[in-house]
């Protein structure tokens, strides 16, 4: 069973979002890490870039596949984890401890579209 953390919000594309002090921190979930398999590459989009929902804020690759990290929010990337390519071991060990980007969202209402932990657990179960 993939680990789901209570205090986070989740997307249908398996990103987690931690919202605090007007900022949204974004990473990949344990479910995503399991699905990807052995990680071999990661990168985060540079800070200063503006993004809209569905736009890439980073990428993660396993031996098998490449996947984009998608922003669920409209806003500006205010912090980017440029060293994430060196942190694949940490990301593998605990994907909730390693974030990709921090976004300052324009519209807090967009957070309402995200799932809470219970809804995300149900969503993962339905994905099989």
């Amino acid at each position, binding site marked *: 069973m993939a680990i789901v953390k209570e205090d986070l919000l989740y997307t249908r594309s398996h990103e987690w979002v931690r919202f605090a002090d007007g900022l949204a921190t974004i990473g990949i979930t344990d479910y995503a890490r399991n699905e990807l398999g052995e990680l071999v590459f990661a990168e985060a989009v540079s800070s200063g870039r503006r993004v809209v929902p569905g736009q890439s804020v980073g990428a993660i690759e396993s031996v*098998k596949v490449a996947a984009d990290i998608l922003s669920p929010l409209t806003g500006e990337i205010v912090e980017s984890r440029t060293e994430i390519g060196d942190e694949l071991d940490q990301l593998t060990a605990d994907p909730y401890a390693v974030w990709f980007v921090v976004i300052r969202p324009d519209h807090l209402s967009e957070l309402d579209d995200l799932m809470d932990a219970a809804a995300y657990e149900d969503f993962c179960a339905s994905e099989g």
Partner: protein
Amino acid sequence: MSSEQRKTPLYDAHLELGAKMMDFAGWRLPMQYSGIREEHLAVRRSVGLFDVSHMGEILVSGPGAFEFLDYLLTRNMSGTQPGRALYSPMCNEKGGTVDDLLAYPLSEDRYLLVVNAANTAADLAHMRFVAKTTWAATGKPLPQIDDCSADYAQLALQGPNAKDILSPIIPETSQLRPFRFLQPASAPDWLVSRTGYTGEDGFEIYLPPAQARDLWQKLLAAGATPAGLGARDTLRLEAALPLYGHELSPDISPLDAGLERFVFTAKPQPGFVGQEALSSVGQSRQLIGLKALGRTIPRQGYPLIQAGKPIGTVTSGGYSPTLERGIALASVETTTTIDGSVLVRIRDKDEPFEVCSLPFVKRS
């Protein structure tokens, strides 16, 4: 949906090993067990065992079987003899590739073709159409064409230690030379060939589905590492072996996929299907090998860029567990000159790659 996918006789064995399963060509197959990297390295350094029972088998038999096959397949068939496996592309009239396959001459008028699972139906349709039309017009005998995929399970035992593991079970295999096959005295309905799809020494074993599980368990008990489709793909990419749907397609000729040594364009009358097209058009594209200079990983479909312009496309790309970096096969026009390095556009950024000789990894 997984419920509609076909299952090999080893399906339960895969689940018991904790395999991560995937859907491929209508089958539910193991993608990985312990992990792609570990399984890959086991094959390079020791020995791995793959369930490839999804592969299709087609029997061409009867009077005229050899001549019909010579007409269907692009390669020079003059060395054909029982016991010798032949790799060949099979083309359509345009010279595009219908499939690439292994032909096993069982006797003078019986040939077992091993084809890609996803292509089996299309191959049969193509072969039957050719038989009824252009082949029938020659007035030569019509052979029988039978789909016998359900009669065979297939295990691939691959790696430098494959021989040591197999020979206690089937003693004759220790003397088997590359691209030769035999039908063991103890199991005459099996076919064991010294072939594979990993770039390593190894064997492919075709046997009745009901006996597959017993052999699978014996080979695992003897020390083979179970390996899934994930490792099969990374291994064949390192060995620069073409994969249908990547390097080959109905619109890609075997010449453009670097398979000219398996295309006998001077085949005498009646020649082979696609010969005219291949002879007149010739080769317009070539495959090149690329190694990442940074950490990025190329994938199928990514464009190659030189002097700001697209000059080709990645046909297969991925992470090489042996070289520990991104590698790719890419298709470019034969007229394109590349001076040692090229860029690959990965997520809107142009990343540097060096052009390298193929295969990426040579036999251990």
